[in-house]
């Protein structure tokens, strides 16, 4: 596989964020969004293509985890937390 381009990494980033916002549990949702943003930001200056590919592969695995866990969370969802009504932002 050719090494991941900037566009592919951004697509992955957007896909992960989009999926994470679907977590029904407030704490999981906020954690996932925050962690993804911080992780991509932390690694934004990585130049080595091998390292980039490793990171991308891990991110793809994590995206799979997020998809499954979002789905399970929705199957077993419960009431919102007391602070969810007050603020709309998802982070």
């Amino acid at each position, binding site marked *: 596989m050719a090494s991941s381009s900037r566009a592919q990494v951004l697509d992955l980033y957007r896909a992960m964020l989009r999926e994470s916002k679907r*977590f029904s549990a407030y704490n999981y949702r906020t954690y996932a969004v925050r962690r993804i943003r911080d992780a991509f930001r932390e690694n934004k200056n990585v130049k080595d293509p091998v390292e980039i590919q490793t990171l991308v592969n891990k991110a793809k695995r994590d995206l799979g985890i997020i998809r499954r866990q979002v789905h399970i969370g929705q199957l*077993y969802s419960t009431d919102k937390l007391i602070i969810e009504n007050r603020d709309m932002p998802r982070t």
Partner: protein
Amino acid sequence: MLLRAAWRRAAVAVTAATGPKAAAPTRGLRLRVRDCAPRSAVPADTAAAPEAGPVLRPLYMDVQATTPLDPRVLDAMLPYLVNYYGNPHSRTHAYGWESEAAMERARQQVASLIGADPREIIFTSGATESNNIAIKELEAAIQPDTSLVSIMTVNNEIGVKQPIAEIGQICSSRKVYFHTDAAQAVGKIPLDVNDMKIDLMSISGHKIYGPKGVGAVYIRRRPRVRVEALQSGGGQERGMRSGTVPTPLVVGLGAACEVAQQEMEYDHKRISKLAERLIQNIMKSLPDVVMNGDPKHHYPGCINLSFAYVEGESLLMALKDVALSSGSACTSASLEPSYVLRAIGTDEDLAHSSIRFGIGRFTTEEEVDYTVEKCIQHVKRLREMSPLWEMVQDGIDLKSIKWTQH
């Protein structure tokens, strides 16, 4: 985790429509049906349901009592609860082999977090069982000069970190076994059993975003530490803990340890910032607040504060929208003040007014701010109602009062 049901409403609505009063809500498992998948059984008129409106859950600020499962941990566990259900001790077929492989992988993950060899990790049902195994060793070794030092790495009530490396050094030089209950510390602060000269360590799954009902005990091999089995039977776990190893649970523990190793630095930084925010914001708005525990040797995620002239239980009840505790869960049923606070010399009255705030991996800034806001509001309100507070405001020194005996 409490589960609510949209089809409880449906059932209630149906029984309300058909028969007499709806039955009292049962405590059974109920699943919520997604709103986007309407069921024909649900009457369109949801106003028929006698429910009072959405119940909002409290914020969770009690991570020292237990932690939520990290989604990565659940994801690792599920295959072993669905298809890979073999007994890891079955030697003759693929179900057993794959289960055993998962168990050994988990063992390696736990060992890697604390700098141990996988052969030194025995899976147990939790840190309590691990503690019992480690302490029983004292009775197993009959020599009169053998002894055991047992210290908690991070205290669960006040968050104080013990000088483990120094204690380990002393024990090793005096040929005394050193056990530490690291339930609150594993995966949160760096631990290395060799650097810190630890001989025995207890690990708890549900304190590190892993499942409940599983833990591990680390037992040093070089030099060999002999323990006596608490639970005898089929000889599993090198004879030290018989019983089928619960593969799904240990896979969860292993995954929790691996995630903890990766996230330790990030979590620690964030939790420290949130803890600072909580403490500063409370202390700048409220006088007479004391933080219990040495601030220099302190794990930031466990904050124990005493609010003078306020009774701890009343404050806990007032903060009904935040899940908090006033001390150790294991003594929460009794009305005695915490033995830990008493031991560090806290005055009786301050010990009764202590609250423990737990900040974890999933705690948000909003949750901290909400908790601070409510805490300030209710402490002020309770103090307004307190005659002791009134006396203090009038300049009376409470310690000088001679209370009459009745």
